[in-house]
């Protein structure tokens, strides 16, 4: 009746069993799976879409109905920005034109011969983003059609290649953030939960080796991390064409370092905490400054210089900096030695403190 117990020696090793238990518990908890795997992906999609480089911006305008209006319409429609959804020129009555402008549906209202000393009058709200640019575009088109000649020639160079976009900046940041959250929650929360349930004490009453227990925590963390990173990196590649400009090995090494560093922090935070409230409070306290200040969403350089010194010393900052340098610029690990040194220091210090303070019961 009972399924046979596996005779495999590896399968019967306590470390293997502890890792397996961690994995099973995790996968059987849909909420945890979502927060660890689904959430960073969703965040990437949302932010990547919101800040993607839009195709040519459309310009919605109206022309006040007069005998000149069709001529103006013809001139403007030579430019694609005035055609199609989101753009489009329309000839409407004065009342309707004003109403559209007021409600923000159009950027500029064009009237021909509205005042005795002007051929065209542009009505717009200069405070509205894009309205001034729209006015200038319209002016240029009308002036050219009226016979203006440009004395100088110019050419434009627009940067839109993969590697330099916001999403390329964002993905290493999200990777770092995922490593932080995963390490803290995956190790810290799990341990406190075991302590509350008195399972930690129960394990201790068996011949289980403490090193096996802690080792299994770290191994399962690394295994979860592999999946987490793969999902994010492959997702970014398929959805946004984000590629790694550096060496794969360098990224892998940084990811492992980061997982260890934050696994250590999780362990440290969990070393004394006796309730889930304490541990989640402590974690948020530790993570919040790094979410804001470690360069996940925007560069650390945006902060005042004094603050930057502090922020650069936080555990997440050198990790994200290194990931970004490798993935975006193809930097070598050698050039990142100071950052790697800092990460290692954090790892060693947190582990040492955690071992000292860890309370098994």
């Amino acid at each position, binding site marked *: 009746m*009972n399924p046979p117990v596996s005779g495999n020696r590896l399968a019967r090793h*306590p470390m293997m069993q502890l890792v*397996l*238990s961690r994995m*099973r518990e995790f996968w059987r908890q849909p909420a945890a799976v979502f927060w660890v795997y689904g959430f960073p992906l969703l965040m990437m999609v949302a932010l990547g879409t919101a800040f993607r480089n839009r195709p040519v911006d459309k310009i919605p305008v109206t022309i006040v109905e007069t005998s000149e209006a069709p001529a103006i319409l013809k001139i403007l429609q030579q430019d694609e920005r005035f055609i199609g959804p989101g753009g489009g020129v329309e000839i409407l009555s004065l009342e309707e034109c004003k109403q559209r402008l007021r409600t923000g549906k159009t950027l500029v209202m064009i009237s021909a011969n509205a005042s005795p000393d002007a051929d065209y009058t542009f009505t717009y709200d200069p405070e509205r983003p894009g309205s001034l640019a729209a006015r200038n575009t319209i002016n240029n088109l009308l002036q050219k059609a009226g016979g203006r000649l440009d004395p100088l020639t110019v050419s434009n160079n627009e940067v839109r290649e993969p590697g330099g976009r916001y999403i390329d900046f964002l993905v290493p940041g999200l990777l770092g953030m995922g490593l932080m959250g995963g390490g803290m929650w995956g190790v810290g929360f799990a341990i406190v939960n075991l302590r509350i*349930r*008195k*399972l930690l004490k129960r394990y201790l*009453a068996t*011949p289980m080796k403490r090193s096996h227990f802690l080792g299994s925590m770290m191994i399962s963390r690394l295994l979860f991390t592999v999946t987490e990173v793969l999902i994010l990196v492959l997702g970014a590649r398929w959805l946004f064409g984000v590629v790694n400009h550096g060496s794969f090995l360098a990224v892998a090494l940084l990811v492992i370092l980061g997982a260890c560093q934050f696994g250590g922090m999780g362990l440290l935070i969990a070393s004394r905490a006796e309730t889930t409230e304490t541990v989640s409070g402590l974690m948020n306290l530790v993570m919040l400054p790094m979410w804001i200040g470690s360069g996940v969403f925007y560069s650390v350089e945006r902060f005042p210089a004094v603050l930057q010194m502090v922020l650069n010393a936080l555990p997440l900052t050198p990790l994200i900096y290194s990931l970004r340098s490798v993935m975006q610029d193809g930097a070598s690990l050698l050039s990142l030695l100071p950052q790697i040194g800092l990460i290692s220091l954090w790892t060693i210090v947190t582990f040492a403190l955690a071992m000292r303070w860890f309370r098994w019961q």
Partner: protein
Amino acid sequence: METPAIRCRELFKTYAGRPPVEAVRGIDMTVAEGECFGVLGPNGAGKTTTIEILEGLLPQTSGEVEILGMQWQHAAESIRESIGISLQETRFSDKLSVLETLTLFRSFYRDGITVSEAIECVGLEDKAQAWVKNLSGGQQQRLAVAAAIVGDPRLLFLDEPTTGLDPQSRRQLWDIIRRYGAQGRSVLLTTHYMEEAEQLCDRVAIIDHGKIIALGSPRELIARLGGEHVIEFTLTPNATTLNQQENGWTQVNHVTGSVYEDGCHRLTVTQPHLVIPQILSHVEQAGAQLASLTTRHARLEDVFVQLTGRHLDDTLEKQA
């Protein structure tokens, strides 16, 4: 001489704090190999503290502990290999199955029985694949016992294995423990339930306020009351004079003890058929009337009441 399963001398434990709590205040006991030993006591008596010191989970303030002839300071590893434990409260991982939980625990021990043997031993065969959170309270307790015996221990510690269970689940666990003890292993269990101790234990130690106040086989302890029978009776409320002479009843022949509590007289007697007529005549002389009268065999509970003037499980007594 055979090495005892457990021996402790002058065991003290004071929890630091304001004020410090003297949870254990000088406990000596010896549990022989193959013996089932019960530690009985009310809430806060120090049962869990004592058992956890013996289990090596809690450092004692002072005193000596020897488990299977070994000491925790020198042979923690080998002691852990040869004992099995069920804590007063452990909640196994909700989302692991019975089989998975036991496979995990089995992996911690060098030698032991197979997981399926452990499952069979506690009768959880048809729940082997069920998640822990879907088990009933009794089934979870049986899982705890299975996890305790999966390493094939020579000595089993069970801290209140049946608290909170319905009578049927309790009996199921008793059978499991009895079968285990029948294999010549030693068991130390704590309980609130007198009946449990009487059913399972070769010897019991009754502890109160961190001290052993009585030690012996259930039979011996009951015999120490001086009488094997208990007569309980209540009088109508107007019998004030009789109710006041609380200890007067011990003057009656064949009465060895007397307690008056909540309007109820409880006498331990050797010869109920000789005592009852005397009670009746005393009552009549006082012009009072009997409201109720029952007789029964003396129980360990009566020993505790006799020794402390309190009941072992106050909550239980109030329900009854």
